[in-house]
């Protein structure tokens, strides 16, 4: 059981590393959200399930699983809220040649 917990925590750490590299290296706000929004959720989920598996069946592990369920529900919601606020604030997306996507007609960017 301990070996499975170590494997799960290391997998969660790998996803944290992926999200951090994406947050530092990608060129655009939307691309950074794309990197961190998913990998952070999965990394937290794997790490918390690994910690609950290390504890064994008790009140502590049940609480850890409740935190995991809560993060699984709220982290994509927070990502969606930030992304929607940035889209309504007209943050310009990154393009390859540096030109904007389309000239200001309509509601989008």
């Amino acid at each position, binding site marked *: 059981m*301990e070996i499975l917990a*170590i494997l799960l*925590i290391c997998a*969660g*750490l790998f996803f*944290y*590393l992926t*999200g*951090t590299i994406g*947050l*530092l290296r990608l060129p655009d*706000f939307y691309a*950074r*959200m794309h990197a*961190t929004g998913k990998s*952070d959720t999965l*990394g*937290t989920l794997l*790490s*918390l399930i690994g*910690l609950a598996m*290390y*504890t064994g069946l008790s*009140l*502590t592990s049940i*609480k*850890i699983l*409740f*935190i995991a369920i*809560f*993060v699984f529900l*709220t*982290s994509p*919601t*927070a*990502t969606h*809220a*930030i992304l*929607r*606020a*940035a889209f*309504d*604030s*007209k*943050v310009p997306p990154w393009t390859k040649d540096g030109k904007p996507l389309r000239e200001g007609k309509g509601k989008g960017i």
Partner: protein
Amino acid sequence: MESFFITISIILGLFVLLCLYRVVFGPGLFNRLVGASVIGTKTLTLLLLIGFIYRRPDMFIDISLVYALLNFIVTIAAAKYFQRKGAF
């Protein structure tokens, strides 16, 4: 097993320091908001690991739960507050 938890905590703290670059130097407001949200999610796991290092996870788990709630509410409130044209 404790040395494994200490190693994982140090690596996670290093990731938090790397994410702090985006909070300090990130161009615009929303990059900083994303960095703060990511640091909050990492801190939640770090608090649980600290609880396992000190062999008292039943006390630190409540702190972690409150931190998860606060992180979500802060992110939603800031995103709703800055949702207007030309805020970045």
